């Protein structure tokens, strides 16, 4: 599955490694022109950079940066979306930290995160299974990947039927109906199981690509030394796949924290708000109950959780960029 694009981009966003340095040295002439009085060329180039960047920056500023700040501001207000907002200080947060549902949502977010992290190992397992050159394997690989391109709504629908206690396939297999989505104990697990289906497919494709770029000599050498099976996988293959694993974990964590579609379609956060997560809880509060300020506070908490991760990721990226 190696082809032009991957080959160009193997140095990827995370680590351009050696190639970055010579490239920037190539660009040195431009820097030199940045003196006290810039030359006309430098000025023209700076103007070009500005013009090229302006449209994207304006859009991102309006639709991404400003909304984040606005949400943080709103979280200190009491607002129903229509009348004047009133400043209430930390009241939304106080209420939030005393709300039972908030803790349910938080707990479910943790369940999502932990169970979702099964997707990378499962994806690796499938990738190892499919990493053979037999007739028709290409189409088999693409079919294995197909669930990922389905919309969350469709996946949610499919699995709601699968779990249906009267007509569902699960009831047929078990011989009796289990109301997976109607039972507060099982609902979250039922949804995560459904969500793992496309996510495993995603991780699988990442690992399949990773496997194509393994160092064959190292593997042969290890094989000579008698490395087989698990020890080979653990000591030789996995270290080589580390960038892939990192990527798989990144997309899985983001996916877990963003989970919304499946919950909305399968349970609507129910029964009794038992399967809600922060993302759904905030949507519910804003759209159904018009509690904009409170909902913004939930969003800020979610953002805070993600921020830890964003900062970690950015530092890692910028470090390797150096």
């Amino acid at each position: 599955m190696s082809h032009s694009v991957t080959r160009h981009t193997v140095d990827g966003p995370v680590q351009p490694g050696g190639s970055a340095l010579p490239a920037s040295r190539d660009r040195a002439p431009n820097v030199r022109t940045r003196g006290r009085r810039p030359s006309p060329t430098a000025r023209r180039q700076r103007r070009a950079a500005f013009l090229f960047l302006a449209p994207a920056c304006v859009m991102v500023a309006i639709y991404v940066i400003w909304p984040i700040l606005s949400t943080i501001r709103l979280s200190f207000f009491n607002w129903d979306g229509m009348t004047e907002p009133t400043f209430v200080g930390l009241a939304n947060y106080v209420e939030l930290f005393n709300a039972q549902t908030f803790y349910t949502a938080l707990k479910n977010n943790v369940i999502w995160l932990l169970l979702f992290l099964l997707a990378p190992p499962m994806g690796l397992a499938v990738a190892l299974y499919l990493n053979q050159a037999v007739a028709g394997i290409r189409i088999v690989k693409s079919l294995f990947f197909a669930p990922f391109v389905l919309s969350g709504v469709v996946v949610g629908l499919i699995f709601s039927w699968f779990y249906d206690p009267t007509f569902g396939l699960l009831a047929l297999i078990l011989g009796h109906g289990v109301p997976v989505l109607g039972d507060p104990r099982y609902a979250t697990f039922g949804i995560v199981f459904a969500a793992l289906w496309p996510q495993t497919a995603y991780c699988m494709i990442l690992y399949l690509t990773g496997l194509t770029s393994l160092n064959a000599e190292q593997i042969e050498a290890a094989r000579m030394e008698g490395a087989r099976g698990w020890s080979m996988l653990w000591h030789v293959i996995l270290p080589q796949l580390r960038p892939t694993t990192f990527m798989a974990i990144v997309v899985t964590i983001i996916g877990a924290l963003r989970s919304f579609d499946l919950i909305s379609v399968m349970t609507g956060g129910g029964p009794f708000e038992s399967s809600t997560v922060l993302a759904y809880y905030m949507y519910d509060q804003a759209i159904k109950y018009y509690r904009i300020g409170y909902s913004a506070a939930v969003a800020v908490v979610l953002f805070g959780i993600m921020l830890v991760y964003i900062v970690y990721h950015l530092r890692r990226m910028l470090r390797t960029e150096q």
Partner: protein
Amino acid sequence: MFPIPIDKWKPATRRVYKLTLPIALLIWLLPMIAVLVTSVRSTEELSEGNYWGWPKHFALFDNYREALTTSPMLHYFWNSVLITVPAVIGSIALAAMAGFALAIYRFRGNSSLFATFVAGNFVPVQVLMIPVRDLSLQLGVFNTVSALILFHVSFQTGFCALFLRNFIKQLPFELVEAARIEGANEWTVFFKIVLPLIRPALAALAILVFTFVWNDYFWALCLTQGDDAAPITVGVAALKGQWTTAWNLVSAGSILAALPSVAMFFAMQKHFVAGLTFGATKG
């Protein structure tokens, strides 16, 4: 190669492997197959309780005609097209320019700008919900496809700019310098030199963004109300509410919703996978 190539296996195990492949595939795709089969099952059969068996009569045309005519499916589908196509074109156009600038020019704030684009990708979209909804209301685009287009263009631009910036950085810089010496202005460098070279990356992005936007449900819920501008994801979810027992019709709707992104994926698989696994092999 890992695991050991199959040619080096014992013939018996090799045969077992080849035998398990279709079975594994069948189990893996069972949910999809079930929907496909259900979408051609007749209503009578469903009322008899044959939900999962092989259908005795095929009602392909009846079901799809019914799903298309008795619900505004076609309208939703068209809305999805109206949202997705401009969103893909817009975000890629903006990102190509931004990625070009970030990769080619050195200026203060370059890396912080780049970091902003990267960070924007990881933001939980829910944080943006209330202000974006408000903004759409104020701009008077709420409940129109424009609201969704504007948002998707802005949000996807970050991801695409990151992708293209790294891609352009890999190109030999001499090309740009040579063009400048030849007297090409910056726009010509971008349009005539760089753009043709990044075509594969643009294709990969286009297909990825297409799937993301086509499958979006959250923003469609937030920025539309009722049927006017609702895309197909909302339409299918609504079908489920209206026709709780008409599984065949809801299945037909789901197939319609899934078809474009699945077809796109199979048609442009190479690019799709390249875009998705971008950066997954080194780092």
